[in-house]
């Protein structure tokens, strides 16, 4: 059924007739106007800036409008090392963004703490507090990697259904829109991770 519909659509498109569904139209509009939040935390931000400039031209994907206010942004690119002192602010910024909102964790520090993983003042991955949609490894990732992450995110947005149980978080009434902001405790962040978002991996027992 679905397959024939797709084939029919392609056939019609060859004849110059465009067909679409409300869901596709909605996602097409959303994926081509993802506005990132304008903030950088460390050196990865330089690569993010390079990606938005003329050579790599993030504008091709409709994402050239970096918004200085979280109210107007759809995408948070966590570009760089998240220190424990900065983490509450990052989570609060995410909370202040309007739904639907997406997160790209850019670079080794943002996805896992990177070279500072065993340090005393670096959060070991922003996915401990925020639902990350796309992770980009690299130290720092090249602008092409960010573009690839962006296209991956666009594919994700395009595949999200408008109705049904598999619909994304922002279309479900019970799903949370804000995530708990960690506090700066005497030794580190309290709690060390948000169990609703992230669980520590279980250690493999040797031998």
């Amino acid at each position, binding site marked *: 059924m679905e397959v024939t519909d797709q084939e029919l659509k392609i056939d019609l498109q060859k004849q110059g007739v465009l067909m679409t569904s409300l869901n596709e139209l909605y996602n097409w509009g959303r994926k081509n106007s993802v506005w990132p939040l304008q903030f950088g935390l460390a050196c990865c931000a330089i690569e993010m800036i390079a990606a938005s400039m003329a050579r790599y031209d993030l504008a091709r994907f409709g994402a050239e409008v970096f918004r200085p206010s979280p109210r107007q942004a759809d995408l948070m690119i966590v570009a760089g090392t998240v220190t424990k002192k900065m983490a509450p602010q990052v989570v609060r910024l995410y909370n202040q963004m309007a739904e639907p909102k997406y997160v790209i964790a850019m670079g080794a520090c943002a996805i896992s703490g990177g070279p500072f993983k065993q340090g*005393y003042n670096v959060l070991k991955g922003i996915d401990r507090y925020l639902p990350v949609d796309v992770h980009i490894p690299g130290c720092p990732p090249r602008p092409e990697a960010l573009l690839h992450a962006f296209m991956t995110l666009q594919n994700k947005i395009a595949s999200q259904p408008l109705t049904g149980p598999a619909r994304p978080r922002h279309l479900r009434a019970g799903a949370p829109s804000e995530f708990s902001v960690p506090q700066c*405790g005497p*030794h*580190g962040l309290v709690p*060390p991770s948000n169990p609703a978002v992230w669980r520590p991996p279980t*250690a493999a027992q040797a031998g």
Partner: protein
Amino acid sequence: METLEEICFRIKTALPAARVEIIPNASPCGQRSLLLGREQGLAVATFLRDDPQLRLDYCSNVTGVDWLEPSLPQGFVQSPSSAGLKKEAGEGLGESGTGCLEAVYHLFSMAHKNGPVVLRLRTENRLAAVRLPSLTPVWRSCEFQEREIFDLFGIVFDGHPDLRRLLMWEGFQGFPMRRDYLVADDFECEPTPHGDVPKRMSPRQGCAEVIQKTATADPRV
């Protein structure tokens, strides 16, 4: 540029009460430094800045060092009463023999276009008596760097205009750059050559435990 011996002599001539000592450096760079006494540290610093032949008017860098219990050279018996011990043990021995915290100042002269002269100030020990005179009144550029040393090493600078934590947040406990700092063990298991993370992981459930990090055997490594 005068040699360190000449500078040392001039300080002692101008301020007879000052305690100044030349710390040798056995490394290839051979950059020696001046160890000042705490009590006259501020007076000596003012002299170094204002003396017309020195004019060390620019402090480029302030660093903290944590000297744990030093590993003594062979053949010496560690006893604080031994007068020769302090001299022979060289770097990093506090007065009571329990190690010390140290602030290192790198001075240059913009007027004479030379430098550096390295100053050291040592606390009495590294546990309770961790006070040093602040040199911020002499060199304004010390302000943030002394704050950072206070933040990370816990040296209390007397006379500092705004001694607060700089990199860590208010309410943080401990001084992370000290060698015996208990690091918050909030990272998950991964195959790493850096230590015994898998071993620590197996018995525990939570993620926020604080486990003592083993201090390195030789503090001067």
